[in-house]
C-alpha cells in the first residue's frame, strides 16, 4: 500500500466530515439560501401589485428566488477556508504533510472532497430554493420553469457559483494560512470591491464592475444577464479562471514554504 490520490482523498473526506465547523457551515448555507430565498420571494409577492411597471417588465423570477446565495456565499467561503486554515491553527498541517510528502496531492485530495460535497449541497439547495420561490410566486408573480434551458442553467450555475466561492476561500486559506486573514480577504473581495468600484467615475465603473466576483455570480444566475454584465458562460469561465489562478498561487506557496 502507498499514498495514492484515492487514499489521500479518503483521508481528507474523514477530516472534512469529522469536525463540527463543516456541518455548521453546510447548515448555515442551507438555511441562508432557502430561508432568505423564501423571505425575499414572499416580500415580492406581497408588494407585486404596488411595483413599478418597468421593474415588473425586467423582473427575473429565477435570480430573485436564488437571492439567498448572496448571503450563503460567505458561509461556503468559510467552509473552504477552514478546511485548510484549521490545519494551520491547530498545527496538524505538519502531521498531514509528513504523512503525504507530495504536497500538491494533499491539495488535490482536499479539492476533490470540497468540490464534490459542496456541489451536491449547493445544487440541491439552489434547486430547492428555486422551486420554493416559484411556488410562493405562483398565482401572483410570473414564474419560471426548470424545463426552460436558460432557467435550468441559471439555477445550476447557482450551485456552481457557491462551489467556486468555497474553492476561492480554500485557495485564500492556502496562501494566507490564517482563518481571520483569509475570511476577511474573502469578504473584502465580495463586499468591499463593489463599493470601491461604485466610488469610481461612471465610465470606469461600467468597465470594471462586471469583472467583480459578485457581478460574475449575478450574471451566472440570471436567465438574461443585464446590460454591462458578461454572458452567463463567459462569467462562469472568468470566475473559474480567477479561482484557478489563486489556487495555483496557493499550491506553489504550499510546495515551496516550510510547513
Amino acid at each position, binding site marked *: *500500500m502507498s499514498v495514492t490520490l484515492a487514499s489521500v482523498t479518503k483521508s481528507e473526506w474523514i477530516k472534512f466530515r469529522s469536525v463540527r465547523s463543516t456541518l455548521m457551515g453546510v447548515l448555515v448555507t442551507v438555511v441562508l439560501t432557502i430561508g432568505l430565498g423564501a423571505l425575499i420571494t414572499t416580500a415580492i409577492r406581497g408588494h407585486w401589485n404596488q411595483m413599478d411597471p418597468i421593474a415588473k417588465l425586467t423582473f427575473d423570477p429565477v435570480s430573485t428566488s436564488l437571492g439567498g446565495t448572496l448571503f450563503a456565499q460567505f458561509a461556503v467561503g468559510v467552509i473552504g477556508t477552514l478546511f485548510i486554515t484549521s490545519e494551520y491553527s491547530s498545527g496538524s498541517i*505538519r502531521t498531514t504533510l509528513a504523512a503525504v510528502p507530495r504536497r500538491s496531492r494533499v491539495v488535490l485530495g482536499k479539492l476533490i472532497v470540497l468540490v464534490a460535497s459542496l456541489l451536491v449541497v449547493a445544487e440541491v439547495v439552489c434547486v430547492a430554493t428555486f422551486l420554493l420561490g416559484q411556488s410562493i410566486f405562483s398565482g401572483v408573480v410570473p414564474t419560471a420553469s426548470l424545463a426552460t434551458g436558460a432557467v435550468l442553467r441559471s439555477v445550476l450555475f447557482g450551485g456552481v457559483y457557491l462551489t467556486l466561492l468555497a474553492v476561492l476561500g480554500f485557495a485564500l486559506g492556502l496562501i494566507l494560512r490564517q482563518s481571520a486573514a483569509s475570511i476577511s480577504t474573502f469578504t473584502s473581495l465580495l463586499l468591499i470591491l463593489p463599493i470601491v468600484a461604485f466610488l469610481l467615475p461612471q465610465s470606469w465603473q461600467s468597465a470594471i464592475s462586471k469583472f467583480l466576483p459578485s457581478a460574475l455570480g449575478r450574471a451566472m444566475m440570471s436567465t438574461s444577464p443585464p446590460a454591462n454584465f458578461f454572458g452567463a458562460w463567459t462569467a462562469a469561465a472568468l470566475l473559474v479562471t480567477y479561482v484557478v489562478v489563486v489556487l495555483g498561487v496557493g499550491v506553489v506557496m504550499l510546495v515551496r514554504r516550510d510547513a
Partner: protein
Amino acid sequence: MLRVDHLTKNYGDTVAVNDLSFDVAPGVVTGFLGPNGSGKSTTMRVMLGLDRPTKGATTINGRSYHDFPAPLREVGALLDAKAVHPGRSARNHLRALAASNGIAPSRVDEVLEFAGIASVADKKVGGFSLGMSQRLGIAGAILGDPGVLLFDEPVNGLDPEGIRWIREFFATLAREGRTVFVSSHLMSEMALTADQIIVIGRGRFIAQGSVDDLTSHAAGTVFVASNDNARLAERLRDLGGRVTVNERGLDVSELVSTKIGGVALAEGISLSELTPQRASLEEVFMDLTADSVEYGSAHVAS
C-alpha cells in the same frame, strides 16, 4: 538508520542548524539533547520533509523522506502532541491518518488500545490533557508500525506513571531493532531514557556517546580528607593540582586519586577519605552547552 549530513538551516538571518552531522543507529534509544532553541525541532522537521534544508541533507535508511511511497510505514513521528484539530475525536484523527497511507482501520483500534486511550477514543481531542495528547501522538507515531521513530520532547506533560510507561515503551521499540530518536532539553530525563546521546547547542554538534562515555570524559574532581589538609593542599598545588579547601576536606582537580594517595603516603599524611567525584550527566551537559545556551537566564530576567 538516520543520517544527518552537514545540515544547515537558516530562517532569514537566524541560523537554526549549523553544519550538523551525526548518525543514529537502530536497536538503541538515542537521546537528542540540547537547550531550548538549539535546533532539535528544526532538525526533526527537516528529517520529516517539512522544512527544506538550506544546505546538506537528512536520510532515513539511505533514502530521502520524499522517496517513501508510504512514509508512515517507514517513519513514525510525534512532533507536537497538541497539533491535532481540537474538534475532532481521537479515533477520527487516527482514521484519517491511517487512510492517507493505506493502513487498515483495524490498526486504529489496536494503537488506541496500546496507548491506553481507547476509553476516550470518541471524545474530542480539544478536551484532552497534555498527557492524553502525548499518548494520542504516540498512537499516531506507531500507526504504520515503522522501523524509525522520532519523538520531540515526548515526556512533557506526562505524569510519573506515564513517564515510566514511555521509557519502557522506547526500550521495547529499540529491542525490536527499531531506530528510536528522542529529543529532550532535560539531561536527567535522557540519562534514564537513552542509551546513546547526541548533544547539540546553537545548532552545532557538541558530543555523541553513551551516558558513561560522556560523563567519564568530563573532568572530574577528587574529594580528599586527611589529618593535615593544609600541608596536603600545598603539596598538591606544587604538583599542578587545583585545590579548593572546604571545612570537611579538599576538592582536587587536574590530579587523579592514585597520584593524590601517593603524595599523601610520601608525606606521611594519613587519609580518612579519598573519593573520585564523578560528574553527573547534568553537570556535563551544563559544561558542554554553557557557551551555546540561546536564552540564558539573564535574558529571562530582563
